[in-house]
């Protein structure tokens, strides 16, 4: 699975993209976040700000409950500020 990070989330986590092998017990976005939080504190510091996190699966907005698989591209980013 590819995970992409943007804006200050990218800076807090220290990378713009990473490849992970999705564990069998991780079925949706919430579970993915729990999994990442257990890897190190950088993730925790980001994901604690739940209200400021937007999620996309395969370049489409989704929710914390959206089901995911190992072939998906996931993105975490703050509310957008273009225009």
């Amino acid at each position, binding site marked *: 699975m590819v995970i*992409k990070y*943007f*804006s*200050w989330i990218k800076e807090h986590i220290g990378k713009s993209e990473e490849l992970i092998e999705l564990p069998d017990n991780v079925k949706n976005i919430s579970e993915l976040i729990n999994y990442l939080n257990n890897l190190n504190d950088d993730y925790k510091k980001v994901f604690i700000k739940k209200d400021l996190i937007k999620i*996309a699966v395969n*370049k*489409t*907005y989704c929710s914390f409950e959206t089901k995911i698989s190992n072939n998906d591209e996931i*993105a975490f*980013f*703050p*509310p*957008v*500020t*273009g*225009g």
Partner: protein
Amino acid sequence: MEKKPIIPVRIKIQNKDFDVSEETNILRGNQTGAIVNFVGVVRGFDERNNNLIDSMTLEHYSGMTELEIEKIVKQSYERWSITGVTVIHRVGKLLPSDQIVFVGVSAKHRQNAFDSCNFIMDWLKTKAPFWKVEENNYRKKWVDYNLSDDEATKKWV
């Protein structure tokens, strides 16, 4: 139900500047009576935080940006009778008074062009994955999202 004609839609994400006359000329044509253009401009001062802005850098999620803008344009096309749409959004480093974004809509009748352009801008502001970081000599600050942008979309519901 009458089927709507296919209309020309151009969506571009680019670093280089755009020429508003050129874009207006592309939107002109025999069937068009009205063109409404929106041009977003980099401001030199952040009023909310009372900071001077020396430059701004725009980051985006390549691929998703185009998809989101396409969705917005499609909704706009379904809602109003329009004859063409162009959306250009710049990314990378920009300076105060630089052009950031162009949304141009042509239509037979002006109110459709006004509403469609306004609609596209409002949704682009809240859905298209771009992020701005403002820079001056002392700091670099990711721009906070603006609650009033969410409010602005409510007029279309």
